């Protein structure tokens, strides 16, 4: 019991003085507080948004607001269904057009392309992310939409028997052109994540397929795509989240008409666009309705992102060969790099 005889308060020569330990403590607790601040910020944000949206929800009811088909500012009716449908149609179109192209680009870059072309191709696709959304809107409305209108009208006339696609007059701003531009905008992020996942396919899997006599395409189909499926789906969901939240390009391209359009080539509105467009002059209940639209948008993107995370994490977990942390890290960096716009 010699140790007990040491007077309390005396420290070993190896220990630092309490004063010297102060910066360490300060840094640790300071940084922890900073991290906690992020959490607090988001929670506070959500509460304030709900508070501002409450009058609109009280007036229309939550279901009445989200699924009511009547957005009439002058009559003070706020049913967000036309906006919700506009958001969903354009985002779905963006996925339908953008994901196959993005995945094909990723396959080409990782499996088929000559080594010398790989880096330039990757840089070029990533450059699409560097174009700001307002520039996409400008280019879409002044160049792409007028150029494509005759083709759209031709399709609408030929397919007039198909509900939703055919018939009707094609306007320059419409759902289709919005979806098309959104597809271009989500291409870099979906492509970057797919590329990242495809580069984790073990070489033995591919070599085994080739060794059994598979052609290149058969190798891609049996070895690469099944291995990457959930990763690609996760990337597509992240792209979907981006398409749902995209504001300025959509505001310029969708036509800003609060109506539930009956065909693909007519004007509509979206949740994000209505906020950007009407917020400036909104008062009272109208302003509250726009906050409510923001809340619906927020919850929608939250759901999509949570789903995407779940899929990407599951994809990483199901493959013990690919270290989960590294995959998440590299994927995150690339995704963020692609998040330029």
């Amino acid at each position, binding site marked *: 019991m010699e140790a007990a005889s040491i007077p309390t308060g005396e420290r070993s020569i190896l220990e*630092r003085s309490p004063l010297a*330990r102060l910066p360490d403590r*300060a*840094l*640790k607790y300071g*940084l922890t507080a900073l*991290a*906690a601040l*992020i*959490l607090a910020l988001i929670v506070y944000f959500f509460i*304030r*948004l709900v508070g501002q949206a409450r009058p609109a929800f009280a007036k229309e009811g939550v279901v009445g607001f989200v699924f009511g088909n009547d957005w009439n500012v002058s009559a003070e009716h706020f049913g967000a269904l036309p906006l919700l449908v506009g958001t969903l149609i354009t985002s779905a179109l963006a996925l339908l057009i953008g994901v196959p192209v993005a995945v*094909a*680009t990723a396959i*080409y*870059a990782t499996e*088929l392309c000559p080594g010398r072309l790989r880096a330039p191709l990757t*840089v070029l*696709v990533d*450059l*699409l992310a*560097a174009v*700001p*959304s*307002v*520039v996409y*809107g*400008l*280019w879409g409305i*002044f*160049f*792409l939409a007028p150029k494509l209108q005759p083709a759209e009208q031709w399709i609408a006339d030929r397919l007039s028997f198909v509900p939703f696609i055919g018939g009707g007059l094609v306007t320059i701003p419409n759902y289709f052109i919005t979806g098309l531009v959104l597809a271009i905008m989500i*291409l870099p992020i979906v492509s970057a994540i797919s590329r990242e996942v495809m580069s984790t396919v073990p070489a033995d899997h591919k070599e085994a397929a080739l060794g059994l*006599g598979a*052609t*290149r*395409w058969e190798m891609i*189909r049996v070895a690469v795509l099944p291995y990457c499926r959930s990763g690609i789906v996760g990337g597509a969901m992240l792209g979907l989240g981006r398409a*749902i*939240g995209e*504001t*300025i390009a959509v505001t*310029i391209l969708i036509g800003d008409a609060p109506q539930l359009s009956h065909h693909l080539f007519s004007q509509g509105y979206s949740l*994000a666009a209505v*906020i*950007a467009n009407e917020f*400036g002059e909104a008062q009272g209940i109208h302003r509250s309705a726009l*906050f409510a639209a*923001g809340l619906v*948008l927020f919850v929608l*993107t939250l759901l*999509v*992102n949570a789903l995407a995370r779940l899929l990407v994490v599951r994809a990483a977990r199901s493959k013990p060969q690919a270290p989960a942390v590294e995959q998440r*890290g*590299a994927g995150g*960096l690339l995704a*963020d*790099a692609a*998040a*330029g716009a």
Partner: protein
Amino acid sequence: MSAHGASADGAQVGQLARFSVSPARRRKDRLARASILAATTVALIPLVLIVYYLMRKGLGSWSESFFTTDPTGNTFFGGSNIGGVKSAILGTIEIVALASAIAVPVGIGVAVWLVEYGRNSWFAHTVRFFVDVLTGVPSIVFGLFVYIVLVVGTGSTYAGYKGSIALSLLMLPVVIRSAEVVLLLVPAALRESALALGAPRWRVIFNIVLPTALPGMITGVLLAIARAAGETAPLLFTAAYTHETNFNLGAFMNSLPVQIYNDVTSPTTAVVNRAWGAALTLVTLILLLNLIARLIARRSRLA
């Protein structure tokens, strides 16, 4: 030779046929590879078209006065005297500079905490999850948030610094995630050697970990800045729109994306042309930032 002929003939040719791919499979392979190549080409077409149109329309409106005068707001008389985009360029630089001054220290601080202190604790996982949530929040919703808290909340009006705060919220997750990735790559042996030599934790972080990770973090920061510089939606009802150049972040402030957005809807051709010129300016600025980020990333290979 084709497999049909081979199977009809002698044993030696049949031997060859066993290893050759049937025409149907070969056709399928060619078709699939051709479609993948075609899709890749399709993916690059928009980029070419956008760059081409920006150059054609934008270069035409670039002139000395385009960069040295403020927009006048005068769009009558065929737009003979509409002014340039000086206030928008300076406004974007000011707003983004302040946004970076907020987001970079906070973001790197949180990343350091995640890597050095939080590691795999439940709290660190919660923070990571919330950072991911932040990544997914649409930019216009950040604008709404800042509007509620700083415009309605303070009973005042729009100001440049409020736009900066909205943009910094947007940059934060990008900075945190990219800094975390780079910090994780700093070899544990470096930290351990410093600790073994008796350095306190904070000196290890400031003198060993951060300098080692610096180039990679700069890359992430530049990409975040490039992202913020192109954003319109969060600025619409936080920094708003004005014509004059001003260096007071407490006042209304112009910015390139908002200027473009306002000009797009104008019926006057000259104003739309000014939007093209401003768009070319903005894209050039952002591409330069991306290029620098890429060069720095290539220089530093931590792993």
